[in-house]
C-alpha cells in the first residue's frame, strides 16, 4: 500500500493539525523535550506504582510487564462518536439477535443467509445452549468491537469480540494518568468522561439477573486466578464495582443454585461476570480436567437460577467467517443497512475466494477463523516469500479455517518513540454494554497502537501499546476561568 494513502488523524507530525487536534498539537509542539520527557516519566511511574500489568504467555522474563503507554491522546469529535456509537449499538443488537436465533429457530439459516454448517461446525457452538433461554434474550452483555479508520469518514469494523473482551481497565487507567499529566488540556477541552464504566457495567449485569434473584441481585466477577494475563483487570473491575472477585473454588452449586463461600456461610450468587472460557466453566459439562470451573454450574444455568455473562456459546458470533456475513446479519435482524462497514472479506471455504486469496496472498491479510491476539495471521505485504508459501500451504490444507482481507491503510496518530514523534498505526476498541433496559457505551474506548514502525499489529502481546482516547465536544472551548469575587466588593 502506498505511503501517501495513510491518513494521519492529527494531520501529521509537522503539518497543519486537523481542527479537533488543534489544542493538543499546539501543546505538544510547544513543549520542550525536557517537559515531554518529564511527563513521560511521570506516566511510567504512575503505571508502575498502581501495578497495572499483563503477562505474556510463554515469556518467563516478563511474568509481570507494563503495557507501553503513549502520552499523546487520540481524539474523536463528538459528531464522529455519535455516528460510531449508533453503529455499535445497531451491530451489537444484531449480534445478540443472531446468537439467540442460532440457539433457537435458526431463521437466518432458513432464509438462506448464513449456511448452517458454518454454525454447527463452529468449535465455539455449544449445543447445550439450544435448551437455555438467558434473561432478556441477551447473550453478549459486554462486547468489544474493534474499529479501524482509513480516512476522515471511513471507519471499518475489523473484528467483533463477543466472548470476554479485555482492555477496559487500560481505558480507565489511561484516563486517570492523563488527568494527572495534562490538567491544563482537560481544563480547556470538553473531554467526555469514562469513569462511569464500572457503574454502567454493574447496572447492566444486575439488569440481566434471573427472575428468581432478589431485588438486589448479587453479582461477582469470576477469574481463572492471579496467573491469568488479565488478572489485574479482573481485580480492578471487581474492586470498582464493589463486588467479590471469585475463583471457581469459591463457588459451589446446591440444588441448582450457585453459592459463594463467605466468612458468614454460603451466599447466593445471581450473576457471574466470568472471565473464564466456556470450556473451563463446568467440569461436569465441558472439560472434565478443568480446575478453574464450578461443578454443576451449567445445570444451575439451565434451571434459570444464575446468569452467566457473557452467555455460554457467544463465540459462534465472533469468529471471522461469521464476521464476513455481518452486513447481512445486521440487515436481517434490524431491517436496516449496517451503519458500520465491514472490511471486504474473502472466505477461503468458497472455492472462488480461495483461488483469489492464493493468487494474491502477497497483498492480503490472511487470518485464522478462530485466531485472536494477533496470532495465526499473515500480513502478506510484510511477510517473506518463505512465510507466504508456508502460510499458503496451511490455507490450502484447511481452507475453511481461513479468511482474507485487503491490507487497509490504517490511520496513524503521532506517538513518542525512540526517534521522537512519529506516526504509528492505531485501532479502537469501544466497549458495548447490553442490558435488559438499554445499550450503554462509554464514549471512546481503548486505542491500541502498533509501536513498531510500519507494523499493523496492535496487540499488547506483540509489542503494541495504548493511548488515551478523547471524545471532544465540537464547538467552542469552555471558559477557562471560574468566576471570582470582584476586588473591593
Amino acid at each position: 500500500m502506498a505511503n501517501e494513502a495513510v491518513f494521519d488523524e492529527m494531520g501529521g507530525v509537522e503539518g497543519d493539525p486537523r481542527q479537533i487536534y488543534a489544542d493538543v498539537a499546539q501543546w505538544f509542539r510547544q513543549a520542550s523535550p525536557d517537559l515531554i520527557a518529564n511527563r513521560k516519566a511521570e506516566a511510567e511511574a504512575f503505571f508502575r506504582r498502581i501495578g497495572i500489568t499483563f503477562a505474556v504467555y510463554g515469556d518467563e522474563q516478563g511474568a509481570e510487564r507494563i503495557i507501553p503507554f503513549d502520552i499523546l491522546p487520540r481524539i474523536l469529535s463528538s459528531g464522529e462518536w455519535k455516528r460510531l456509537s449508533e453503529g455499535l449499538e445497531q451491530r451489537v443488537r444484531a449480534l445478540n439477535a443472531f446468537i439467540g436465533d442460532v440457539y433457537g429457530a435458526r431463521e437466518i439459516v432458513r432464509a438462506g443467509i448464513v449456511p448452517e454448517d458454518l454454525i454447527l461446525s463452529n468449535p465455539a457452538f455449544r449445543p447445550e445452549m439450544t435448551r437455555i433461554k438467558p434473561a432478556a434474550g441477551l447473550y453478549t452483555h459486554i462486547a468489544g468491537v474493534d474499529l479501524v479508520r482509513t480516512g476522515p469518514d471511513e471507519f471499518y469494523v475489523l473484528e467483533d469480540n463477543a466472548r470476554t473482551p479485555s482492555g477496559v481497565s487500560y481505558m480507565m487507567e489511561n484516563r486517570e494518568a492523563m488527568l494527572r499529566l495534562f490538567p491544563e488540556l482537560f481544563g480547556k477541552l470538553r473531554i467526555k468522561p469514562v469513569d462511569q464504566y464500572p457503574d454502567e457495567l454493574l447496572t447492566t449485569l444486575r439488569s440481566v439477573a434471573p427472575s428468581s434473584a432478589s431485588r438486589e441481585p448479587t453479582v461477582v466477577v469470576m477469574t481463572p486466578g492471579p496467573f491469568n494475563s488479565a488478572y489485574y483487570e479482573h481485580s480492578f473491575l471487581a474492586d470498582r464495582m464493589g463486588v467479590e472477585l471469585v475463583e471457581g473454588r469459591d463457588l459451589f452449586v446446591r440444588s441448582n443454585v450457585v453459592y459463594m463461600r463467605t466468612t458468614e456461610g454460603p451466599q447466593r450468587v445471581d450473576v457471574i461476570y466470568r472471565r473464564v472460557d466456556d470450556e473451563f466453566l463446568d467440569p461436569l459439562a465441558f472439560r472434565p480436567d478443568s480446575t478453574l470451573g464450578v461443578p454443576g454450574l451449567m445445570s444451575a444455568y439451565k434451571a434459570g437460577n444464575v446468569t452467566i455473562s457473557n452467555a455460554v456459546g457467544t463465540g459462534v458470533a465472533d469468529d471471522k467467517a461469521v464476521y464476513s456475513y455481518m452486513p447481512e446479519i445486521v440487515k436481517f435482524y434490524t431491517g436496516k443497512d449496517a451503519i458500520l462497514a465491514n472490511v471486504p472479506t474473502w472466505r477461503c471455504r468458497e472455492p472462488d475466494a480461495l483461488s483469489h486469496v492464493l493468487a494474491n496472498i502477497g497483498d492480503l491479510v490472511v487470518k485464522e477463523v478462530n485466531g485472536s491476539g494477533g496470532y495465526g495471521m499473515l500480513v502478506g505485504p510484510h511477510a517473506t516469500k518463505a512465510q507466504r508459501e508456508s502460510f499458503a500451504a496451511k490455507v490450502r490444507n484447511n481452507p475453511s479455517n481461513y479468511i482474507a482481507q485487503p491490507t487497509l491503510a490504517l490511520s496513524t496518530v503521532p506517538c513518542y518513540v525512540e526517534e521522537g514523534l512519529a506516526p504509528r498505526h492505531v485501532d479502537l476498541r469501544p466497549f458495548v454494554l447490553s442490558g435488559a433496559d438499554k445499550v450503554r457505551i462509554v464514549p471512546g474506548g481503548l486505542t491500541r497502537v502498533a509501536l513498531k514502525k510500519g507494523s499493523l499489529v496492535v496487540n499488547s502481546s506483540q509489542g503494541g501499546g495504548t493511548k488515551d482516547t478523547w471524545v471532544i465536544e465540537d464547538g467552542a472551548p469552555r471558559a477557562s476561568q471560574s468566576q471570582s469575587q470582584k476586588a473591593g466588593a
Partner: protein
Amino acid sequence: MLARTADNLYWLSRYVERAESLARILDVALRLATLPSAYAGTSNEWESAIDIAVCRDAFFRHYDVANQANVTQFIIAGPDNPSSIRACIEVARQNARAVRTAITTEMWEILNDAWNEMQRLRFQSFTSKDLTKFLAFVREVSLRFDGAAYRTMLRTDHYWFQRLGMLLERADNTARLLDVKYHVVLPETEPVGGGLDYFQWSALLRAVSALNSFHLIYRGGIKPWLVADFLILKPEQPRSLISSYETLNRVLDLLAERYGRQGPSQRLARQTYSQLQNMDIDTLFQTGLHEFLEQFIADNNRLGLAINDQYLQ
C-alpha cells in the same frame, strides 16, 4: 466477604509475623553463640534455633552439623524449607497478590518491595555483617507492614482476619521460644548468686524485644521465673500469651457481633484466655511449665483449626 479472601488475609499476616520471629530467633542465636562458652553454657545455640523454628527433621536431611553457616542458611533460604524467611515473604506476597484489592496500597508496597529485595540478595555469600543487616531488614519489614495495616486498613472484617493471623502466630512463637528454653527459666536451676544463665534469660527477653520493658515492669534483676511470668501472664507485654489472647478474644467478638453468630473459635479463645487470667506463676510452675506450654501450643493450634473451619472455607 469471601472465605478465600479471609484465608489470604489471615495467612498473609501469619507469614509476615513468622518471618519476623525467625529473624529474631537467628538474632538471639547469633548473640549467644558469640559469647565465650563459660558465659553461654554448653547447649548448642544453633540446635535450639532449629528446635524453636520447628524444622529439625528437614534440617538434618540436608546437613550433618548445626552450626552458624548451616542453620542461618537453612532458616533464611534453605532448600526444601517451606518455612524459611524467604519462603515466608514469598508466600505472604502471593497471598497479598491474590487479595490485592482487599489490602491497602501501603501494605502491598511494603511486601512487594521486600520480595524484590529478596530476589536481589545473594544469601550464599553473606558475611556476618550482611547477616545482621539482613535480620534487621526482616524485622523492619514486619514492623512496617504491621504499622501500615494498623494505620491504613478499614476496621472491617478484612482487618480483623489480618489481626487474627498475626496474633495466633505470635502466641505460637512466644510459646515455642519459651518451651525450647524452659529449662533455663525453671526456679530450681537458678544458680546461687546469679550466673551462667543470665545471658540466656536476657537473650530470651531480647528475642521478643522485651529486655528494656522487663526492667520497667519488674524493678530489680532478671529472675528466671519472672521472665516466664512476663512472657506468659503479663497483659502489659504485647508478646505475652495473655496479651495475644486478650486481643484475639476482642477480635473474635467483633467478628461474632458483625456476623451475628458465635462459634467454636469464640468458645476456644475464651477458654484459653480465662485459663491464663486465673493462673499465677507459682501454680504454673507446680503443674509444670513444659506441660503447660505443650498444652498451650496444642490449644492454640486447635483455635487455628476452629477459625479455619468456621470462617476460612
